[in-house]
C-alpha cells in the first residue's frame, strides 16, 4: 500500500498569490514555519524551523504557480516527500498537499535499495537519486 497523507483546502487568493505564500521565506513564517531558508530550484536546499524543530531537505520540482515538490525531515530521521498542487477555482485556488514516505516502501518491497542509498547512508538524498523510487 502506498503510505501518504493528504489534505486540501480552497484559499481566497489567485494561484500566483498562493504560490508566493508557499515559496517566499518571509511569507512562510506567517503561516507555516518559524524560520525558512530555501533555494527555489530543483536540487536546492531548504531549511525550516517548524514547531521548534529543525527540518532540512531539498526541492525536487518547481513549476510556478502550479506545483511544488520537496523533501523534508528532522535531522537524521526518515525524510518525507511533500507534493503541493495549486489549481485555480474561480477567484480562489484549490491547494492540495500530499505527504508521502517513499522510503518506507523499501521495507515492504526491498527494491532499489542499492540505487537510492548508493550515495551514502544520509537520508537527505539528492535529486538525481530520486528517479529510482518515485
Amino acid at each position, binding site marked *: 500500500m502506498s503510505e501518504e497523507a493528504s489534505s486540501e483546502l480552497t484559499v481566497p487568493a489567485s494561484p500566483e498569490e498562493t504560490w508566493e505564500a508557499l515559496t517566499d521565506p518571509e511569507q512562510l513564517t506567517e503561516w507555516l514555519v518559524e524560520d525558512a531558508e530555501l533555494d527555489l530550484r530543483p536540487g536546492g536546499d531548504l531549511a525550516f524551523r517548524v514547531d521548534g524543530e529543525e527540518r532540512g531537505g531539498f526541492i525536487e520540482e518547481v513549476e510556478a504557480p502550479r506545483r511544488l515538490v520537496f523533501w523534508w525531515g528532522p535531522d537524521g530521521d526518515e525524510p518525507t516527500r511533500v507534493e503541493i498542487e495549486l489549481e485555480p477555482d474561480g477567484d480562489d485556488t484549490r491547494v492540495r*498537499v500530499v505527504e508521502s514516505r517513499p522510503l518506507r516502501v523499501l521495507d*515492504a*518491497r526491498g527494491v532499489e535499495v542499492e540505487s537510492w542509498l548508493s550515495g551514502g547512508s544520509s537520508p537527505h538524498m539528492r535529486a538525481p537519486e530520486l528517479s529510482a523510487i518515485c
Partner: protein
Amino acid sequence: MPAAARADEVFTALSDPTRRAVLELIGGRGEATASQLARELPVSRQAVRKHLSSLAAAGLVTDRREGREVRYRITPAPMSEAMTWMATVGGGWDARLAALRRHLSRA
C-alpha cells in the same frame, strides 16, 4: 515503538552496503536463506547471518523456519504505525492549510 525511533534503527541497519545488498537480494527473490544469499555475495554465510540479525532487529526482515532451513523475507511496514503516521501528518496539513487560508485572507 515511536516512528522516529524505528526510522533511526532502519537507517542504521541500512547504513552498511552488504546489508543493503542482502535486502535487495531478498526483495528480488521474495524469500531467501542465508546460504542462498552467501552464494551471491562476497561474504561468508556466517557474515550473512549477522547481517540478517541486524535487519531483523530493525524490523526490516522476518524469518520463517521450513524444515531445516530458515527463510527470510522483507517485512511489510506495520499497519498500525502507518495509520498513525497518516493521521498525524494529514492532520498537520489540515492545520497548516487552515493557517495558509487565514494568512491569504489577511493579505
